[in-house]
């Protein structure tokens, strides 16, 4: 036979239908004999209607939109943070991998060829002097003025004038 102390502890589970059949029968046998426990059970039963007298405001109409906006942002952040060349290689399909290898080979080959052809040559280079284009005018800057030339006559005139003026 269950004592009141033991029975009171199981009243909630009895009310919730959580006891085994044997335990349920033990509680019911005790309740038949115990006014105090029947009163306690009655008190527990009143809780449910009291607790449900409690309204909840409706779900805000914007909640789904806000959650989805946050979800899209989160997805973008995850994609950006999660990317790595190795991960890309693992998820790329075989044709894309083959194309990437092909492009790498072509790029390296082109770089080698261009580098090879533009490298400076090791032969000695002979530099030939180009003729001075003014030589055809036979200009002589350092010797005396040619006799009979206009420049010579001018110089003679100036020298004579200076002598006369002294």
């Amino acid at each position: 036979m269950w004592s009141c102390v033991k029975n009171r502890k199981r009243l909630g589970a009895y009310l919730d239908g959580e006891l085994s059949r044997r335990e349920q029968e033990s509680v019911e046998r005790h309740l038949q004999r115990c006014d105090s426990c029947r009163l306690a059970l009655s008190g527990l039963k009143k809780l449910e209607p009291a607790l449900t007298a409690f309204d909840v405001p409706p779900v805000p109409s914007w909640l789904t939109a806000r959650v989805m906006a946050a979800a899209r942002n989160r997805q973008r952040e995850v994609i950006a943070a999660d990317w790595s060349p190795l991960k890309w290689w693992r998820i790329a399909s075989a044709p894309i991998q083959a194309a990437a290898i092909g492009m790498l080979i072509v790029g390296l080959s082109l770089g080698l060829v261009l580098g090879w052809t533009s490298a400076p040559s090791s032969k000695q280079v002979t530099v030939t002097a180009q003729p001075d284009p003014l030589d055809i005018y036979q200009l002589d800057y350092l010797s005396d003025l040619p006799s009979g030339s206009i420049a010579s006559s001018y110089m003679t005139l100036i020298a004579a004038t200076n002598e006369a003026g002294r």
Partner: protein
Amino acid sequence: MSDSMISNESLMQATSKGDLEAFEEIVRRHQTWAWNLAYRFLGQRDETEDVVQEAFMRLLDTTNRYQPSASFKTYFHQIVARLCLDRAKKKQPLFMEAVPETPDPGPDADEVMIRNEAAVAVRAALDALPPNQRMAIVLRYYDHLNYEEIAAALETSPKAVERLLARGRERLRATLAARADFS
């Protein structure tokens, strides 16, 4: 196949592969009970908004860890309950006297006022419970979960749930016993 026939578990698997339409369907299906649970536990709109949004974000972040063998509702209950409990533990107790609204005069004004006062009393009684007891009471009385399901949500045992409910009920009875409409 109509959308209603797609299981929550299938939607979670689709979400784990990046399908946000599947995730939106999960949000639509489960936002009401998640909102109700969080509000009944927390009692404040702004906190409920934060917790529900965070719960869905946690769900999104963990889709690749979700095992289809586990019930989705149990899994999401766990997330919502954990967030509510964390929020309650961080919060300083704030004792506020919620003044019932004065109803418009009318034939049912007295009834409305009594109902409002009862709601305030229940809210105060729930808020006075320790967080774990409060969550067990909310999951039992409002979500009608059995002890196994409550134990899974609270990550404890059914026996511990029985004890939490017994203590929670005792405190609620003591708090509400003074009310004429309760005894």
